[in-house]
């Protein structure tokens, strides 16, 4: 198995706050990997850093063996001795849309579907980089088959959808571009257990049948670990544990991190 995504000691700061401190992890081709941790641990920040929505201040990110973001030792690039305020990091770093173009799709936290657009239009946006109309149409049909509830509501504005439906739409939208790597940020957030289960089953199918590598962030540790091959545990911007999911499920520390057992 080759490393599809290789993150090497990246840091991210919000002003004076260090959200990520030299985090390293990797995702192999074909895996489902989960990242669990309490709220505010820095999980979402990590996903945003991968897709360049947050600039990294240290380290590098490689995807398919190619660097998509890298910071040299000096940190911020300077021009005439003055730090350029426009962007930290090197200009060779890819932009969010370029990373999307390489087959990385992120399902953002809180769904972030385009509320004023219909279900169908949301899917169209997911396939923005696909130029083949026939392929788009076929993909859409696949999605409607896969998530029948979306098919039934294809002409509806997405603001009228329930939370679970919106989550499915967000996943379907990400899948429209036929990504190789699917990043999911808290897919279970605010959803009823039955719906969460449904969504994780779908994730499984996507991984197994479409050969999509999945990296997911979840605070519902139990369900995330059950759904994944491997897992990382994050606390305060640092990876504190990494193991096969089955092992992590048994790990007392994980229970402690969630329920304060000590």
């Amino acid at each position, binding site marked *: 198995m080759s490393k599809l995504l290789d993150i090497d000691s990246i840091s991210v700061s919000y002003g*004076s706050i260090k959200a990520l401190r030299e985090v390293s992890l990797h995702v192999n081709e074909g895996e489902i990997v989960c990242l669990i941790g*309490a*709220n505010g641990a820095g999980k979402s920040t990590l996903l945003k850093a991968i897709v360049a929505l947050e600039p990294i201040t240290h380290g590098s990110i490689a995807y398919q063996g190619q660097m998509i973001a890298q910071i040299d030792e000096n940190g911020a690039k300077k021009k005439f001795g003055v730090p350029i305020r426009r962007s930290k990091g090197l200009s060779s770093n890819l932009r969010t849309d370029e990373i999307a173009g390489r087959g990385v799709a992120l399902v953002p936290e809180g769904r972030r579907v385009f509320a004023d657009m219909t279900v169908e239009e949301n899917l169209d946006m997911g396939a923005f980089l696909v130029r083949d109309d026939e392929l788009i149409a076929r993909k859409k049909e696949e999605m409607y088959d896969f998530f029948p509830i979306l098919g039934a509501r294809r002409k509806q504005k997405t603001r009228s959808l329930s939370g679970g439906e919106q989550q499915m739409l967000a996943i379907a939208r990400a899948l429209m571009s036929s990504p190789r790597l699917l990043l999911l940020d808290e897919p279970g957030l605010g959803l009823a257990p039955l719906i969460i289960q449904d969504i994780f089953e779908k994730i499984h199918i996507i991984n197994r049948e479409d050969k999509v590598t999945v990296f997911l962030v979840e605070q*519902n540790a*139990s369900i995330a670990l*059950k759904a994944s091959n491997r897992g990382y545990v994050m606390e*305060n911007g640092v990876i504190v544990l990494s193991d096969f999911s089955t092992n992590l499920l048994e790990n007392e520390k994980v229970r402690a991190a*969630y*329920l*304060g057992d000590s």
Partner: protein
Amino acid sequence: MMLLETTKLTRAYGGVVAVSQVDFQVREGLITGLIGPNGAGKTTLFNNMTGLDTPTSGKVYFKGADITNRSAHKICRMGIARTFQNIRLFKELSVLENVMVGLHFKTGKSSTTGRVMAAFLSYLKVVDEYELMNESAIKWLEFFQLESLKDELAKNLPYGHQRELEIARALATDPTILFLDEPAAGMNPSETDSLMKTIRRIRDLGITVVLIEHDMKLVMNICDTITVLNYGQNIAQGTPAEIRHNPKVVEAYLGKEET
């Protein structure tokens, strides 16, 4: 009588019910924890109790008085102070000034008009007022050992200190009850430990503390009583030990164990 309680408090945004028929009680002198998974409605409940949001139905009582639709500044003046999940400091003001804003309504004339006139007409008073406020503000900064940073801009403080400063600012309003929204979020374990001590010290000042927190270690350690919300509903209430072994709570947090 409870110091503060809500009866059948419901808050719906359009069709989404964030808080549903919640009865929540705060007993005087205790540290009350409010926990639940993300999106369970904890912050919404806080907002409805502190006047930043108005409930769709239900009531909020403080010391027996109905404060349901009161505006935030009035509720604060009655003795309810709070901090915010995503720290809301006055970033361009200094540390000292942040605390002084907390002292604002406690000092001098009580009406806004009076205050404007006082500032305009009595120059000496401005200095007197300043010195008075300075003194009590420093006292609160010392409480958090922040006095050496008093002239820094709030935005330049490290994260942990920002959290502390926010609490100091809330305490400066001289509250009966203090709401803390995720005070430990983003803190490292040692910072969390000192926070725990701080919260106990605040309780020892005779201030009732209510906190939302995800860090279970902290919650289980310092709370006298815990209320658990899930999907906007109050699913459990009790001592830390009771909560820890409540199957509904375990399910809410770890997901249902499949059998």
